[in-house]
C-alpha cells in the first residue's frame, strides 16, 4: 500500500512541480547565454536592459520556484489529509504510518530535486565567471588552510555533515506535518493554531541552537577536551548536534502527526 500511496502522491504533484523545477533549467540556460554573449559589455542600452531582465528573471525564478515548491507541498499535505480529499484518504484501508511515510518521502524527493537544481544552476552560472570563480576557489583554499592549521577534519566529518543536512530536511518536512496536524486539535481556528504551533516549536528549537553555541564556546575557551582540536570540535560537534537534535525532532514530529491522525482525527 505504501508504494501505491507514493504513486498517487507523485501523480498529484508532478504536473505542477516538474515543469516549475524545469523552469529553473530554462532560465539558467538563458542566463548562461546572456553571460556568454557578453550582453553587459554591449554599447546598446537595449541589449544591456535585456541582459539585466534575463538575470533578474533568473534570480527570481530560483527564489519563486523554491518558495512555491514549499508552499505547494504544505498546502497539498493540508488539503489531502485534512481537507475534502482527506475523506477519501482516511477511508482507504491503509495504515496511518504509510500515509505519513508516503507524504514525507515524496516531499523530500521534491525538495531534493529543487535544492539540487538551484545549487547546480548557481554553480553552472558562477563557473562562467572565471574571475569570480577564482575568488571563490581562493576563498575555499584559504578556509582549508585555516582549518588545517587547527587540525584534522576528515572525510567522515564531511560525509556526516551531509547526513545531518538530510536528516534536518526530513525534520523540517515533518515539522510542517506535525504543525498542520496539531492545528486540527482546535475546534474553531485550525489554520491559526497550526501557525501558533509552528512558531512555538521554532522558538524552542532556536533556544536549543543557542544553548549548543554557548556550550561550544565554553568548551573551546576552557580547553576541556584536549583530544579534540578547535576545528574538529567545531565541525564534529556541529554535525553531531544537528544529527542528534534533528533525529529527536523527527521522532517527536512523526509521532505528533501519527497521534492526531490515529487518535484525534476530526474531519468536521
Amino acid at each position, binding site marked *: 500500500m505504501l508504494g501505491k500511496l507514493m504513486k498517487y502522491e507523485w501523480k*498529484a504533484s508532478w*504536473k505542477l512541480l516538474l515543469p516549475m523545477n524545469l523552469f529553473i533549467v530554462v532560465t539558467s540556460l538563458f542566463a548562461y547565454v546572456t553571460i556568454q554573449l557578453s550582453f553587459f559589455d554591449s554599447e546598446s542600452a537595449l541589449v544591456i536592459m535585456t541582459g539585466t531582465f534575463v538575470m533578474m528573471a533568473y534570480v527570481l525564478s530560483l527564489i519563486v520556484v523554491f518558495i512555491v515548491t514549499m508552499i505547494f507541498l504544505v498546502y497539498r499535505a493540508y488539503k489531502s489529509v485534512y481537507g475534502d*480529499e482527506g475523506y477519501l484518504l482516511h*477511508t482507504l484501508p*491503509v495504515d496511518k504510518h504509510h500515509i505519513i511515510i508516503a507524504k514525507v518521502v515524496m516531499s523530500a524527493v521534491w525538495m531534493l530535486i529543487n535544492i539540487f537544481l538551484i545549487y547546480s544552476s548557481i554553480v553552472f552560472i558562477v563557473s562562467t565567471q572565471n574571475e569570480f570563480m577564482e575568488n571563490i576557489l581562493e576563498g575555499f583554499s584559504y578556509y582549508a588552510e585555516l582549518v588545517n592549521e587547527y587540525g584534522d577534519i576528515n572525510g567522515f566529518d564531511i560525509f556526516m555533515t551531509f547526513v545531518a543536512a538530510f536528516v534536518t530536511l526530513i525534520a523540517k518536512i515533518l515539522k510542517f506535518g506535525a504543525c498542520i496536524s496539531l492545528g486540527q486539535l482546535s475546534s474553531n481556528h485550525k489554520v491559526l493554531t497550526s501557525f501558533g504551533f509552528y512558531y512555538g516549536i521554532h522558538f524552542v528549537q532556536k533556544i536549543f541552537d543557542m544553548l549548543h553555541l554557548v556550550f561550544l564556546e565554553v568548551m573551546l575557551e576552557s580547553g576541556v577536551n584536549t583530544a579534540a582540536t578547535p576545528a574538529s570540535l567545531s565541525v564534529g560537534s556541529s554535525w553531531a548536534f544537528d544529527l542528534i537534535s534533528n533525529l529527536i525532532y523527527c521522532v517527536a514530529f512523526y509521532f505528533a502527526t501519527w497521534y492526531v491522525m490515529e487518535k484525534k482525527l*476530526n474531519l*468536521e
Partner: protein
Amino acid sequence: MVPVVQCMGLTKTYGGKLALNQIYLNLEPGKIIGLLGPNGSGKTTLIKIMNGLLKPTAGEILIGGHRPGIETKYRISYLPERTYLHPGLKVIEMVQYFQDFYPDFRTERAFDMLHRLQIPPNERLKNLSKGTKEKVQLILVMSRDADLYVLDEPIAGVDPASRDYILNTIVSNYNRNATVLISTHLIADVENILDEVVFIKYGNIILQAPAEQIRQREGKTVDRFFREVFAC
C-alpha cells in the same frame, strides 16, 4: 447474527455542543436503511464516526464486530456528502485508484455505469459539473462488493431526472447480503427502495422501524409521517 453496525451509548460533542446523544442502534445485514432527519440532526456525524473520520466523545461503535480501523475500511464503501476526488486526475485514473486500494472493486461494473451515464473516462474531474462529479463518486462507491454501503446524501446534488437512475443503480448493484445505509432528507425520492427507516432528531434516535410497518400503522407514507414528526 452479528449486526453490521452496533452503537453503544455513542456520544459526540463539538466544543460543548451535543451532536449525538448516547445513541444505541443496531443495523442488520441485507437491508436498505434510510437514516432520516433534518439538517443538523446528527446524520453526517454518525456516518463520519462509522468511517473513522471523527472520534466519538463517549461510547462505542462496532462495524461487523470491529472498531473503525483498517479492517472496517475494507468492508465499508462510503460516499461522503462532498466531493473528495482529486480534481487534477482523470475519471479513469480514479477508477484505477479504487482498483489499486480496494480488492473488492469491480472495474467492469464501473466502466459499464460510466458508459450508461455517458461520462467520458478520459475527462479530468475538474472539467466536470458538480452533479457529474457526484455521479462519478457514486459509481466508484457502488462498484465495490462491500458489506456496508454508507451513502451520505447521494441524490442531493443531482437533477431529478438522474435520481431514478442513481437509485436504480444503488438497488441493482449492491451485494444482496450487504447493508445500504442512505442518509437523506429527500425522503419521497428514496422511500420506495427502503426496507427500514431510522429517524434521528437533535442527536437522538427517535424511531427505528420497517418502512412497511410505518405505512400500515400510520396509514400514510414515510415521507408524510416524517413531515409530521419533524414539523417546525
